[in-house]
């Protein structure tokens, strides 16, 4: 069974499967990098008990595809996959996995970093944080895929 390169899913994320898919038949690759985002037990002084992720799924999938296209334009020799989990996640569970493979480690690292920065900018997914004493919707960036300044900021971080 083939693994999708982009997924927004309530299933537990499988880094091994995505890595295998990205690495499949790629004898020219010199590097595979992976990023896993985890649910942590504290945020802004609050003791987090769990997170509930909500997505506008069809647009989230499109936005993730767009990010992979952007990364492929920047690092043409790099292949990428990204899976984002939604629904209730406990402390320590993976909320996102990103895998990049490239002939060059620099490209693989940069593409991975670029992808997570862009996810936080333009993918319509929200964290509903449940903590000791309450709950709050976290709000980060106003999503605007056409915002060139945001895109360049992600690129600068990726290449720092």
């Amino acid at each position, binding site marked *: 069974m083939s693994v999708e390169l982009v997924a927004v899913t309530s299933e537990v994320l499988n880094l091994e499967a995505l890595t295998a898919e990205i690495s499949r038949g790629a004898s020219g690759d010199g590097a595979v990098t992976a990023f896993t985002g985890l649910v942590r037990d504290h945020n802004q002084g609050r003791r987090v008990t769990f997170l509930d992720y909500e997505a506008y799924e069809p647009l989230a999938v499109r936005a993730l595809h767009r990010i992979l296209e952007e990364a492929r334009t920047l690092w043409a020799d790099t292949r990428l996959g990204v899976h984002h989990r939604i629904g209730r996640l406990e402390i320590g569970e993976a909320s996102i996995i990103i895998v990049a493979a490239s002939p060059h480690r620099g490209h693989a690292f940069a593409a991975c970093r670029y992808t997570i920065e862009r996810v936080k900018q333009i993918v319509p997914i929200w*964290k509903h944080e449940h903590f000791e004493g309450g709950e709050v919707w976290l709000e980060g*960036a106003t999503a605007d895929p056409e915002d060139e300044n945001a895109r360049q900021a992600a690129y600068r971080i990726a290449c720092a």
Partner: protein
Amino acid sequence: MRVTVRLFARLRDLAGTGELTRDVSAPATVQTVWNALVAEMPSLLEYERTMSVAVNAEYARMAASVNDGDEVAFLPPVSGG
């Protein structure tokens, strides 16, 4: 004409629902739909300057035209990852 409105995260909480339908008169834009919504639910107005919008699950601008049967989504600042 009739449009489906989708609301997410805190906007959904404020409205008490994530999906509703509204009749607006043509020609309409996303702004028309939003104006109708905040007239009913003034608490949503705090998101006017920070939200993003989408028409039929594609990012759009407030000035984008809206047609009968379209799905118009209002999205608070995102926090995925």
